[in-house]
């Protein structure tokens, strides 16, 4: 197992808090992490639902959900960006 720090921003932060630590099997992808969080039900299931547009970053770089997470990584989930 590995420990992953998960951060949330914008509407996801309001629903889930700014961050939490999650234990995951080694070799898990960001998509697998999202599934683990979804299975908790409640607000996690609501805001991370598959039909919701959620973007993710690994170590502060935007990546696809197929990307594998390494131990100690910083992962973030957030809605589509709206700056500028």
């Amino acid at each position, binding site marked *: 197992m590995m420990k992953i720090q998960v951060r949330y921003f914008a509407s996801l932060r309001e629903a889930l808090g700014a961050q939490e630590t999650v234990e995951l099997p080694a070799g898990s992808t960001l998509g697998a992490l999202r599934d683990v969080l979804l299975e908790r039900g409640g607000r996690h299931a609501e805001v991370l639902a598959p039909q919701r547009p959620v973007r993710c970053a690994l170590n502060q770089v935007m990546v696809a959900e197929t990307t594998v997470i390494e131990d100690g990584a910083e992962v973030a989930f957030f809605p*589509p960006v709206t700056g500028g």
Partner: protein
Amino acid sequence: MPRVSIQTADFDLSAEVAALRDGDAGVGAVASFIGTVRDRSDGAGVSAMELEHYPGMTENAIEAMIDAAMQRFDIRAARVVHRVGPLLPQDQIVLVAVASAHRGQAFQACEFLMDYLKTQAPFWKKETTADGARWVDARVADDAALRRWGIDKANA
């Protein structure tokens, strides 16, 4: 001068452009863009806006965009300032300024950087209307704007 600043404070276009081209007599053109807070959005009146970002990632993402612009266009310098925190209608939000030898590359690089920033830099806008506060939805048109540059990275 840093190429990227994320700040709550306002910025001064004249001072930023002066610093951008300071000491470089090869500059013959400066193009700039400023985004400001509108008082209407999707048919509703907007009385205030709050901008959130991802400290560290936001700066690095924009640095990488400027690297891409420097590779793609014949430009000499670029600068991005983006405000975060509480803002009001008419406030300045973002500045992109690009210096080059001739105008064409400066215009193009400025638009490229704005198109890139709109869909790939981690910022989120929350606007206050008469019905309360709401997060702004990303626009498909902004993804299309980035695709014009041959970059297919969907956001909305």
